[in-house]
């Protein structure tokens, strides 16, 4: 048992580091930038695209992808190693590309022909084109297969009508992966078909939604008689659910680790060191210490769970189901730590931004946490997934199973 690289891993790490040293400056401040800023700030976006292109040319943009497609056909472990080394350098986070490269393009690569791949993979991996995921609708998020956006075929052309919601980054996107209903007369999972489309084409209306946190990360999209050719279909007609599962599998891997805005026990301790409570310094208060320890063991547990997952990858094995627990732990921990920190701040905790202690980090964490508990599968859906797929417990009783979609009960 150790944390050492294998000889091949060590060699790859050295190569990656040498390359990074030649192309970037070491990070001085270890502060995460707000990912939304990157997208809405043209100068930051330009830097992010440039860095993406440099990495793609070298094959370090998506290490596990084939050569010529931004990768080197490398192992998942090499991708992790590169990520670790890259995080030590002052380079753009590239969060604008995460959904496209993490979910949409892998789906395109799995289902589309070579001509489509040749057209779309490279621009995406080089940061020239941004993709978004058009799945959730007012009618269905957790139950995404309940979506209603219609695609109707006439000759070789499909006409799209309907709306999507909660689409992250749609306002900055060039293309979208679109899940539609093509047959409402069959049970809901059987009447779906996947497409991709240009977000800039006539009939696509993108309206940013202001979030509870005040930012506008996601959008509402309206489709009015949008025409797309049959060649933009991803997978067979009626096979949309299987295609979507490919995307969602990638989503879970992408959303899983590392989120939480960098707020954790270390920041809580930093705050507790500076505050006085009724009985003395907050850091010496027994109740504060118990809470810190509770959250520390969850953070540490997650960190070492990740190392166990990496060990499996390093040995060329499939990671075990333990990889599925990350988001449940991270999202509620962020919410709880933030709320507790504000408790310690007391009356002054109502302040935000520069007026609040530690530049309002906890207020910001607390405001964004509800979104993290919902996005990419809610806490409840993730517990269902662990219960059913990891522990093998039965599915919920389903009232919509063999019923044609247009006969399934729906609320208002």
């Amino acid at each position, binding site marked *: 048992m150790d944390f050492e690289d294998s000889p091949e891993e060590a060699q790859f790490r050295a190569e990656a580091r040498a390359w990074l040293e030649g192309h970037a400056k070491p990070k001085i401040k270890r502060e995460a930038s707000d990912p939304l800023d990157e997208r809405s700030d043209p100068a930051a976006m330009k830097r992010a695209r440039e860095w993406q292109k440099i990495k793609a040319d070298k094959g370090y943009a998506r290490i596990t992808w084939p050569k010529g497609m931004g990768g080197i056909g490398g192992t998942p472990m090499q991708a992790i190693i590169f990520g670790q080394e890259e995080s030590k350098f002052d380079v753009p986070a590239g969060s604008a590309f995460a959904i496209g490269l993490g979910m949409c393009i892998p789906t395109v690569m799995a289902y589309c022909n070579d001509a489509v791949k040749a057209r779309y993979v490279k621009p995406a991996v080089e940061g020239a084109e941004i993709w978004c995921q058009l799945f959730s609708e007012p009618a269905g998020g957790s139950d995404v297969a309940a979506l209603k956006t219609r695609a109707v075929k006439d000759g070789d052309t499909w006409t799209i009508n309907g709306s999507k919601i909660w689409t992250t980054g749609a306002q900055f996107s060039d293309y979208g992966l679109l899940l539609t209903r093509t047959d409402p007369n069959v049970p809901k999972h059987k009447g779906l078909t996947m497409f991709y489309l240009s977000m800039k084409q006539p009939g696509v209306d993108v309206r940013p939604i202001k979030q509870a946190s005040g930012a506008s990360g996601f959008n509402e999209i309206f489709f009015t008689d949008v025409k797309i050719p049959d060649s933009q279909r991803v997978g067979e007609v009626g096979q949309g659910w299987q295609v979507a599962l490919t995307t969602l599998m990638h989503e879970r891997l992408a959303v899983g680790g590392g989120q939480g805005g960098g707020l954790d026990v270390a920041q809580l301790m930093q705050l507790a060191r500076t505050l006085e409570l009724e009985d003395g310094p907050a850091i010496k208060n027994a109740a504060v*210490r118990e809470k*810190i320890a509770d959250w520390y063991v969850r953070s540490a547990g997650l960190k070492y769970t990740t190392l166990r997952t990496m060990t499996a990858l390093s040995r060329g094995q499939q990671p075990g189901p333990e990889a599925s627990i990350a988001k449940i732990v991270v999202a509620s921990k962020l919410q709880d730590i933030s709320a507790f920190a504000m408790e310690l701040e007391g009356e002054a905790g109502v302040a935000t931004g520069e007026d609040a202690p530690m530049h309002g980090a906890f207020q910001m964490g607390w405001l964004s946490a509800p979104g993290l508990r919902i996005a990419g599968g809610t806490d409840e859906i993730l517990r269902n997934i662990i219960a059913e797929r990891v522990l093998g417990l039965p599915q919920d009783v389903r009232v919509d199973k063999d019923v044609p979609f247009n006969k399934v009960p729906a609320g208002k």
Partner: protein
Amino acid sequence: MNFDFSEEQKQIKDQARKFLSEKCSTKTVRALYNGAGGSDAALWRQIAEMGWMGTAIPEEFGGLGLGYLELCVVAEELGRALAPVPFSSTVYLFAEALIAAGSDEQKKRLLPKVASGELIGTFARAEGPGAVLPKTIRATLKGGKLSGTKTAVTDGMEADFAVVLARGSDDAGERGLQLALVDLKAKGVERRAIGSLDPSRPAADIAFEGANAEALGKLGEGWQNAERVLQHAAVLTAFEQVGGADVCLAMAKDYAMQRYAFGRPIASFQAIKHKLADMYVNNELARSNAYYGAWALSTGARELPLAAAAARVSATQAFDYAAKENIQTHGGIGFTWEADCHFYYKRSRQLGLALGPQRAWKDKLVGELERSNA
């Protein structure tokens, strides 16, 4: 990255599981619950024949000289099986105290007997309810004589020897403390069996009245030595706790799949599914923390105090949750003496208290974080 046990270590674990599933079912535990309580002497002898007590004891002192990682995998299996034997007292505490603080002569004299299973040992610290602090230790070691009382000493009735935290000088603080090694069959030792939350892990109050005892380690280092021993024991015990917690999850799952209510298996109700999913999350986090503790223990890393505290807190929380929610998942049958659920409920608390409560470990954990960030 190689953050896992090796194939050889996993083999040891598999063998241990096979052995214990043959020799130690919950019937073994139940027999003690229905009788006078205590340990299963026959099982202890069989475990001794397997050489498990000597797993981490160096060969020069009669052990197998394997290492702590091998001991961790054995511990997990003992925890799964609820093995009613004085293994933790003898191996994680008594032997570790000798290894940490003993002289060469003391090790040569006693460790081979631990390794062979001839000697049962224990470790005595608390003198009453509440926190154990340097100032609460009143037992004295003076001129080779030990006086004072220790309470709720696990395996105190069966043990042949004990390591006792005592005061070796008039200094009332930490500097006055020293570990003492005492033969519990000697004159001046009065033992009284006390009721134990977990009858298969018995406890005793022990009174010393000028009993012959020898110093174990230096005067002034008693507290630190005890802390070190507790850190070692915390990591090893965390594996027992993780083992127990995993069994609770498996029991809850099996029962939920076969028990029907409202025309469907209770395992299809979300309240049950989410409970079991939470158990799974807790158990995985605890396992990962225990692995890190095992790494720190086996390499003597300076992160050990933090790693041990985290392993301890995480495993205690996981086992507590799994044990109580296993009963809840079983409904009324889970609350009966007949069902096995209460064995785990009681063992989870026994293990959670015997090395000191969560509160104390959390305080140590944060102290380590303060030091490492300072």
